[in-house]
């Protein structure tokens, strides 16, 4: 295949190397389009030549998902990085997919606003990456996920056509909600080139209270007490043993994020401290709540052989924290969402632990996904696990939108 340089310029097309590998698969080419039209031309060329492409931003999250069955072209969107239109009064923003989160945050901050999505590695995470990999962090506990904030999208489909869904207004039910199809789809239905979000006022202040617990169960109980109270925490993380290494105890702890105006925070802080005292637990206040949140959010990408993501009902979080216990295993959960991340240090421990947790979770309607893992670990496990009754429809969906199976083949559920 030649012709990439004709589309994106000589400086934008090069041979792929080991540093461009997606789960160990090295692409033949790395291509960096400068415009949506160039993305369209690249995808159209790929379709004609039947070459497989994986879209990427800054490459910080390519370890999410299954290993691709093949990658001929890594399509890097880092040159599509503009904030196109921030309407502060409407609280919406339209941004190109390759825009890194800090650049977007800087624009929004000028108006006292934010896009409340806080994935790990924010400095090297692009808007397109957040959407394609459905990345989130502690803030989802009160602010929702990408799907809840995305109101419009433009994608380049497998034929090279530019397709829009949604719009630029916060409420809109005209036609199907196409934007949601691409959230978490890992680029298997098209290349995201532009997104419009609703944004929110940024809390004036953010602090946190960390409650130390003697064990995972006590931590989970303390988190439940917060959830069942009138408190409306900005975020709520609960850790099993070793989860919050720099916390006040052995790591089993609850971190309660508080945001808002002074009166709200002062009142909420007192209530959290009261709740902790009532359970006989010690607690400390952390003035830089945002800093602590960023550290906790980074848990998913801390060095490990694999990071598992266990989804259960919020009341079952304590059971998971207790079950996923042992040397080299650490846990941190979004308490309100019932999402527990389990970091496993020993590569040989991953497969047995996945199996055990899947068995336990399935009994309560839960599931386990291997969110990130080293390539050699991935080959030994089923990354996605049971996808449920919708898999047949998902196969048809993929066939309808990418009949040639050139969009990130193999990365998604069911080998799609």
């Amino acid at each position, binding site marked *: 295949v030649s012709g990439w340089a004709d589309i994106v310029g000589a400086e934008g097309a090069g041979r792929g190397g080991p540093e461009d590998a997606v789960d160990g698969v090295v692409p033949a080419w790395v291509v960096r389009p400068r415009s949506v039209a160039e993305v369209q031309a690249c995808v159209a060329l790929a379709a004609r030549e039947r070459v497989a492409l994986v879209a990427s931003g800054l490459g910080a999250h390519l370890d999410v998902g299954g290993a691709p069955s093949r990658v001929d072209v890594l399509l890097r969107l880092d040159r599509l990085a503009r904030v196109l239109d921030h309407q502060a009064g409407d*609280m919406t923003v339209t941004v190109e997919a390759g825009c890194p989160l800090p650049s977007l945050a800087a624009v929004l901050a000028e108006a006292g606003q934010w896009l409340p999505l806080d994935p790990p590695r924010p400095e090297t995470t692009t808007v397109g990456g957040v959407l394609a990999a459905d990345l989130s962090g502690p803030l989802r506990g009160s602010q929702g996920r990408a799907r809840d904030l995305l109101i419009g999208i433009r994608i380049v489909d497998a*034929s090279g*056509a530019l397709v829009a869904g949604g719009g630029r207004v916060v409420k809109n039910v005209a036609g*199907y909600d196409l934007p949601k199809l691409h959230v978490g*789809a890992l680029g298997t239905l098209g290349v995201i080139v532009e997104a419009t979000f609703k944004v929110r006022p940024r809390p004036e202040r953010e602090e946190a209270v960390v409650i130390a617990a003697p064990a995972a169960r006590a931590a989970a109980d303390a988190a439940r007490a917060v959830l069942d109270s*009138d408190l409306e925490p900005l975020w709520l993380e609960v850790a099993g043993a070793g989860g919050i290494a720099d916390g006040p105890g052995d790591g089993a702890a609850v971190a309660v994020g508080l945001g808002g105006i002074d009166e709200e925070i002062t009142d909420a802080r007192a209530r959290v401290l009261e709740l902790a005292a009532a359970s006989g637990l010690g607690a400390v206040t952390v003035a830089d709540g945002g800093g602590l949140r960023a550290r906790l959010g980074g848990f998913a990408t801390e060095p490990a052989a694999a990071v598992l993501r266990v989804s259960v009902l919020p009341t079952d979080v304590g059971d998971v924290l207790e079950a996923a216990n042992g040397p080299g295993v650490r846990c941190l959960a979004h308490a309100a969402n019932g999402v527990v991340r389990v970091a496993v240090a020993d590569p040989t421990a991953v497969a047995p632990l996945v199996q055990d947790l899947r068995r336990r979770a399935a009994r309560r*309607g839960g599931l386990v996904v291997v969110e990130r893992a080293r390539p050699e670990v991935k080959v030994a496990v089923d990354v996605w696990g049971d996808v449920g009754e919708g898999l047949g429809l998902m196969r048809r969906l993929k066939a309808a939108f990418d009949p040639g199976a050139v969009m990130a083949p193999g990365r998604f559920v069911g080998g799609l």
Partner: protein
Amino acid sequence: MMAPALVAELRAIVGADGVVDRPEALLVYECDGYTLERAVPEVVVLPREPGEVAAVLRLLAAEGVAFVPRGAGTGLSGGTLPVAAPVMVCTSRLKRIEQIDVANRRVVAQAGVVNQWVTNAVRAHRLVYAPDPSSQPACTIGGNIAENSGGPHTLKYGVTTNHVLGVELALPSGELVLLGGAVEDRPGYDLVGVAVGAEGTFGIVTRAILRLVRSPEAYRTLLAVFESVDAASEAVSGVIAAGIVPAALEMMDALIIQAVEAAYGVGLPTDAGAVLLVELDGPAAGLERQVERVKAVCARAGSREVRSARDDAERAALWKCRKRAFGAVGRLAPNYCTQDGVVPRTKVPDIVRRIAAAGARHRLRIANVFHAGDGNIHPILLFDERDRDEVARVLEAGREILEACVELGGSITGEHGIGVEKMGQMPLLFTPDDLRAMIRLRAVFDPEGRSNPHKIFPDAKVCVETRSPRRQAAM
């Protein structure tokens, strides 16, 4: 005509009392809340359980018969109008709340459960189902999911799609599939996300797993009175610009105020140009400061006064005015047509002026009661259906208002759906490539196009046109 044998087989599935085919009884089903077009189905089927819905659809699949799903028939875009679909499948007997999980704030409800029942069932636990369309005492969960319904409190809490964790869908093939589920972060495409708002074109929703929210510790409900809609609109922009996210921010204009006051007599100022209903909620601490900020913004925009509900009874009275405003409109004219459009919130003053201009141009009275906080307008065009010229002018003015919404950067529907009403205006928002993608998606769920045909997409001609030339060329 429907084959008598097919009707007999439908009876065998749903019971003798579950099939309606007497002409006079069928008249009830000739339209929903959108009354400008009417069509009578040949037969209405009322299954009692999700399994019966699937059995009905299997039978219809075998016979190649098209169908229209219907809940309570409160839709406002003609989404349940039977066009080229002889069978209507009504989910109103699927009315069980199957499971309430208080600790995890989840409910499993069958499609025919009325929206309000969900909140009634969990209120004692200080929980609510947040989407609250004005029709919530009647509209069903299945219908809410089909339309991705909104409501006043969706400004802060989000619309239906933000509160649905799982959907059981009877596909047009008759297969029952559970999409999503009770736990978050399920692997795979977000099929729940696209099934919500599909307007019945993917099959029939039979049950849903819904997310509940805890009712806030405290509320403050304010009524701000203005001399003009313009001034009130300015206050709306001011509140948003101040970084305040109220639970609800609703506007009523003079015509609505007068009608509502005549109907319910709660003491609204009938000489005002507009009122804003502002609700703030959350932890009690800090709420007072937000109230003061809202009052200051209103004062800057020229409010005559800002009243505050003193207790739950006063709050309830104010909300009754808002939610039953449409009912009061019956006092103003024999008929009315509610439009549903969206503009960016800062364009509310512009669209209100454009609405007034369209009314003047077409010699129509137009009342306004709408979700100002998210730019979702609901002009109510008053008319007398016996006056055919006036009906034509209503349609024309409605079209102009929607075109103005699009010009201002908005959308042709915020919560009522496209249905049959707005099919023709889809090209204002979407290119042929965009529409092709949607039609392709529909075919994933309904390859034969038998579930709620002739809805959403402009017309059959478009379907023919959109047989992707690109894909044929590739093959």
